[in-house]
């Protein structure tokens, strides 16, 4: 997921080819999970323990069941997927021996037939050998209507899964779907020999004491407190180097930071250090505190079916009236980075040529005047009986967002625009209110990508408007036929260069149409003790613990 890695995110071979051309930074990417400096010698036993502090408690340990971000750290440590995505966005083999593509014959020219070769040296934590049957079982379990599975998009297209041999499997896709490779980096393989015996896999004992193939085995869990994983000495890859990996649950973010300061926590995980502690955290002795770009993007999100927002001029005027720099510097301590798009800047698909936002109240006024939005007696602009008045919601209890709202409310008022603040608890906010587009406008921080794949059909295709019976989460109710066509084409295209052109154009169109007013791309303030090596942020995953197998204490 980097501009530097100007190559495919599909295969090691592509990556190496482009590295040779000049992507110097990608040199270490194919080896990231492999040997170099992080490797322990085969005789060295893992030593030490790392305690990761988390703001939410991991509770879902079957990686195929519906879960949230915080569970990912456990899944990446206990399980393996067929592929793994590295920080550069290059997909690496994990349980598979190579990443299939159209050149190596792993994916047919029409994108419909997939054939995966698997490692033959992998064992489950209980000693049983891993095989293609486990992969077949996993893909079928996801689509089992009685199983409480997580995302089914992509998997729903899989047909005719065939186990060719214990180390080879193939299937047919109902239609070509390029993002599926990215989806598979987040699809962890579960053991058939344990779960096939369960009458109801959603309530299986396995879900509370999982058995995987990963670098760490299940240790013990103290609910409400912490979870302990222990090194898997039989792991097929390099690592792990630490003996124990502990996920400690600390719900209050001030307390989380305090425990980082006091040394109770070795590494701060999600939701990381709050921006207001950034400056102080940087000065702490024996701690390393860094800003890490995330794929999450904050926007002033509009419901385009509201009459106030139907006209582009209104959206342009509101955008011009947002003093982004003041919000970022004044409220967020300079931690996030301004952006014009939903695509992370580190992505191969990021379009750097989008028009730059400029805060200009006069321009905003002129746009509204020209479009015929005239101030009424109460000072609020109106046109054709529609007042330029709307509600803005965000999650209550988020003081920084609430301050940003108040700031915008005052700025908009200078334009003759009335914004009412109407905040809701998170459990209410992101339910039907958000999913069924019942809001006027919201301030939301969300991720648009799965892994590093640029496909955003679920967020921006007109077929994805849930409020109109669609199946996705295009909550702005954005509809642009050209964007729809591009997204359809992008999902069928496997060539990264061709896809880059497609998603650059999508970003241009979305920046032009402004279904949401882009604010900034998030940076997380990550902190760890000085002695821990091998921690490597990866914006293509949702967890800081994606490569805990490479962590080790400097001796």
């Amino acid at each position: 997921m980097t501009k530097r890695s100007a190559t495919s995110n599909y295969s090691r071979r592509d990556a190496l080819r482009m590295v040779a051309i000049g992507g110097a930074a990608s040199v270490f990417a194919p080896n990231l999970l492999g040997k170099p400096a992080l490797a322990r010698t085969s005789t060295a036993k893992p030593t030490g323990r790392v305690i990761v502090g988390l703001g939410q408690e991991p509770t879902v340990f079957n990686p195929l069941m519906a879960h949230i971000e915080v569970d990912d750290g456990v899944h990446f440590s206990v399980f393996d997927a067929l592929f793994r995505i590295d920080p550069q966005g290059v997909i690496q083999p994990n349980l598979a021996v190579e990443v299939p593509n159209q050149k190596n014959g792993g994916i047919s020219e029409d994108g419909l037939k997939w054939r995966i070769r698997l490692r033959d040296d992998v064992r489950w934590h209980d000693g049983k050998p891993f095989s293609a049957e486990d992969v077949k079982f996993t893909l079928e379990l996801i689509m089992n209507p009685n199983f409480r599975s997580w995302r089914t998009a992509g998997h729903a297209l899989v047909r005719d899964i065939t186990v060719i041999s214990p180390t080879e499997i193939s299937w047919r896709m109902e239609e070509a779907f390029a993002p599926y490779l990215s989806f598979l980096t987040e699809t962890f393989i579960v053991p058939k020999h344990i779960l096939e015996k369960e009458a109801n896999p959603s309530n299986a004992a396995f879900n509370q004491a999982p058995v995987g193939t990963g670098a760490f085995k299940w240790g013990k869990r103290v609910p409400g407190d912490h979870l302990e994983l222990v090194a898997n000495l039989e792991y097929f890859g390099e690592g792990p180097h630490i003996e124990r990996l502990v996920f400690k649950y600390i719900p209050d973010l001030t307390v989380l930071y305090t425990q980082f300061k006091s040394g109770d926590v070795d590494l701060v995980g999600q939701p990381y250090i709050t921006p207001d502690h950034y400056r102080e955290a940087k000065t702490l002795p024996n701690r390393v505190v860094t800003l890490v770009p995330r794929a999450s993007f904050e926007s002033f999100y509009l419901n385009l079916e509201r009459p106030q927002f139907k006209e582009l001029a209104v959206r342009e005027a509101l955008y011009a009236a947002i003093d982004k720099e003041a919000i970022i510097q004044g409220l967020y301590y300079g931690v996030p980075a301004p952006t014009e798009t939903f695509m992370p800047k580190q992505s191969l698909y990021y379009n750097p040529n989008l028009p730059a936002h400029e805060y200009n109240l006069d321009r905003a006024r002129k746009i509204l005047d020209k479009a015929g939005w005239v101030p009424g007696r109460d000072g609020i602009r109106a046109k054709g009986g529609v007042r330029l008045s709307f509600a803005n919601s965000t999650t209550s209890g988020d003081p920084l967002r609430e301050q940003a709202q108040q700031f915008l409310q005052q700025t908009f008022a200078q334009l003759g625009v009335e914004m009412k603040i109407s905040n809701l608890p998170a459990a209410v906010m992101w339910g039907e209110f958000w999913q069924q587009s019942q809001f006027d406008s919201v301030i939301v921080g969300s991720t648009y990508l799965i892994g590093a794949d640029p496909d955003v059909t679920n967020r921006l295709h007109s077929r994805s408007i849930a409020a109109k019976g669609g199946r996705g989460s295009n909550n702005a109710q954005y509809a642009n036929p050209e964007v729809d066509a591009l997204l359809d084409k992008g999902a069928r295209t496997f060539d990264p260069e061709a896809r880059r052109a497609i998603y650059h154009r999508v970003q241009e169109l979305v920046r032009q149409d402004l279904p949401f007013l882009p604010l900034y791309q998030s940076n997380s303030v990550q902190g760890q003790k000085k002695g821990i090596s091998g921690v490597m942020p990866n914006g293509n995953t949702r967890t800081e613990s994606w490569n805990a197998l490479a962590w080790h204490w400097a001796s």
Partner: protein
Amino acid sequence: MSGFLLNRLSQSIVLLVIVSIIGFTVLNLMPGGPLAQFGLDPGMTQKDVERLAEQLGLNRPLWIQYLDWAWRLIQGDWGHSFRDGSSVLTVIGRHLSATLLLMGTSTALAIAIGSWIGIRGATHRYSLFDYCATVGAMVALSVPTFWFGLIGIYIFTLKLGWVPAGNMYTIGDGSVLDYLHHLILPSLVLSLVHVAIWSRYMRTATLDALSQDFIKTARAKGVSERRILLKHVVGNALLPMITLAGMQLPSILTGALVTETVFTWPGMGRLFLDSLGYSDYPVVMGLLIFSAILVVLGNLVADIVIATVDPRIRLA
């Protein structure tokens, strides 16, 4: 006595049904729900959310959901957590011991310290000690517990380094001494409010007992002040305290929301807060019923104990 018990038991069942209906209705009418947490997931489609709602039975009419839940409850099945699939009783059981340890210690501390302050305040009325105790109690009651908690962590952990920043034990240690070390700050902070309450009640009850005729008689007979205090005053003053203790039983078991959060204590209070945050209805309902049962039991036990201690009271 058996008539009293039967009467109270039937009243309790009606109470539990009412509590459960109100709780279930309010909880389920809250917009959002357990699937809201997936609203921002880029890979979850609307169909995925609908499928999960169906699997969890959330798409059925509310009254059917309630009857189904109640019927299972009667059969001893408290349901399964939406979050991790564990049975509700298992989830509650996992957090109960942590809360019992923290609340038990702080309650014992509160009763011991509070009673002592109350009795001494009453016997030394309008002394410097009494005034200080009164002002101290007012402060303890007025200032939020989390503030005491954060100040305690700042002073005793970050500045002085005497006690840990929180947690129930050091991961990898877990010896008795380690538990006690971790228990000091949260139990003291948590006991502050209860010390204040107990000391005020105890002071009033002691003063009340001291003004009784039998005390005057005892004094006239030449019984020593120490004996009067221990034998006659404290015994009588403790009677209303039993009711208070009974009423506190549910709070002992359901935990201290804020203190458990500030001190990273894996107890029932945090479980309740988390479950509410995730709209994990089965667990929230389980905790609600559990608390309601404790309230009923606490009051019942208090009544019985009082009747046993004070022969003038008859249960009918």
